[in-house]
């Protein structure tokens, strides 16, 4: 996770439940599944906190063309993997918002503006945001998302950016909260808990 917030796209479509961002980015800047991002709303008075759950590389005819060939020079492969700006589109689930009073884990009152910049969330802010766990319920309730993988990945990443001494405690705390929410489905619970622990 980059240390300082990085622009990862602009909002192209949105609602209060989430938004879609797009950008031409170099491979280094492609947003990470399970990472948090912020998009401006209400003319800058608040920011919607999004959780990236789907990333796709769109319309890259050129790469497809090269990929179809058998004998591609190494320089072109390297060029494609490292240099090329890829047009990406990502979907983010709205898990909260931030205003003058700080972070809130509730559906944002207004969606972000179209073409608003979307920034990856700095580690310090992610630690701050994830110190409350209501957003877990939002993830679990979201339809048509890879909920279990998203939950495990997001929390694993959030643990890794914490100082080493706090990781265990965070994982245990979140594990217990998920256990509370999923007490009726132990198979699912166990899968998610294993995902929390495995090295990504």
């Amino acid at each position, binding site marked *: 996770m980059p240390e300082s917030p990085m622009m990862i796209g602009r909002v192209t479509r949105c609602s209060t439940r989430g938004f879609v961002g797009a950008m031409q980015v170099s491979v280094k800047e492609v947003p990470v599944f399970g990472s948090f991002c912020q998009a401006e709303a209400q003319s800058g008075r608040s920011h919607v906190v999004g959780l990236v759950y789907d990333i796709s590389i769109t319309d890259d005819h050129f790469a497809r063309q090269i990929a179809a060939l058998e004998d591609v020079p190494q320089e*072109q492969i390297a060029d494609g993997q490292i240099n090329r700006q890829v047009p990406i589109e990502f979907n983010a689930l709205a898990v909260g918002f931030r205003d003058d009073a700080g972070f809130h884990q509730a559906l944002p009152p207004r969606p972000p503006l179209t073409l608003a910049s979307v920034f990856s969330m700095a580690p310090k802010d992610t630690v701050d945001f994830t110190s409350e766990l209501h957003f877990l319920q939002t993830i679990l309730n979201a339809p048509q998302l890879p909920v279990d993988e998203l939950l495990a990945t997001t929390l694993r990443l959030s643990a890794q950016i914490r100082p080493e001494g706090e990781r265990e405690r965070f994982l245990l705390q979140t594990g217990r909260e998920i256990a509370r929410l999923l007490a009726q489905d132990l198979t699912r619970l166990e899968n998610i808990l294993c995902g929390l622990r495995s090295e990504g």
Partner: protein
Amino acid sequence: MGIHLPSLLPQMQELGQSLYERSLQLSKMVPKAIEALHVTADLDHSDLQSRIMKAGNRWTGAIPTEEALDQTFPPPKAPQSLHVIGADGSQIYPDRHASAFYYLINIGSIVVSRGNGETPTIQQESRLFFELEDLYGEADYPIQNAYVNLRRDVAEMKILTERAETLAGEKTLAILDNSLLLWMALQTGGSASRETDRYLQQYLKLLDRLHSSETGLAGFIDRPRSVSVLALIHLAGLPGDQITQDSVHLTPFRGLTDRAIFTHLLPPGHRSAIFISASPLNSDFRTAGHEIHFFYLKTAADDTVVRVEIPIWVAQDPELLNRVHAGILQDCQTTGGFPYTLVRAHELAVIPPQERAAFDDMLQRTLIGHGLRPSQSQKALTKELTGKRKHYRL
């Protein structure tokens, strides 16, 4: 409501019919033209030269060099390592309907170092022009788009030159997605000609630098529509006494292109003989020692023929010439007859509509931040409103 389809439908039918008939005619013409080329090739060199003299200084056909006109030259062995530099540019033209009066030139370039497997280096340069001298030049009225194109072309060559110079001493090939001749210099006139001239001189100085750094410089023209070799063939076929300024233009090969002949003539990977461009622009280049030559090249097995322009110091240097020939072929291998470096340079240069929109947005906010009130013209607003909106559902 846009076009009136009902009245267009019969016209489209006529178009289809006409194109079909024309293609039949043209296909009958091609063998004749090739035959004529062979005949021209057999002519005495000085005979050809005198005919060209008689054609006058408005004749824009191809001028032959020492090479036999109908000869094809096989691809030389590709060098072990070669640095291929590509550059391309794009622009945002000044728009009096937009929130501010400015123009933008964006140049993308890439250097692929063939043979060492390393990641190519890419570069993007964007420049915003908004000062009065940029917007008006030396005139009382704002510049035209052609002027922006001129500045862009010069900027492309500048980037090529700079990148080539960082590789001085190594084998380099620099390709431009364009003719090497500065075409805009032709189209501007009047009080702008002083400025145009200034840019031309800058340009020629860049060519000097490229010459000094022993770079294989080439301009790559995709799907060329030139007929200059056909003009030469026609000229060669006229009886000596019937050569007038008018008769040289009435070629029986109208509708045909040079490309059509060379598609038949050239095996894959071969180049044609080198010709000299007879464009009036070439005189300035000639004076500066950069007379522009050209040849046709079949880049891929599927009959793709392109036109490659080279300065005289490449045409007359066998090593540089071969480097250009083989280097371009190699660069086109994975990209179906078009150089990889130019595809990428184009990608790096182009401004996608989203980014364009984002740029506008940012600009508006900056202006507001400086206490200005950007106003969009009614025309611009109207365009926005009639665009499509898509609803987003999570």
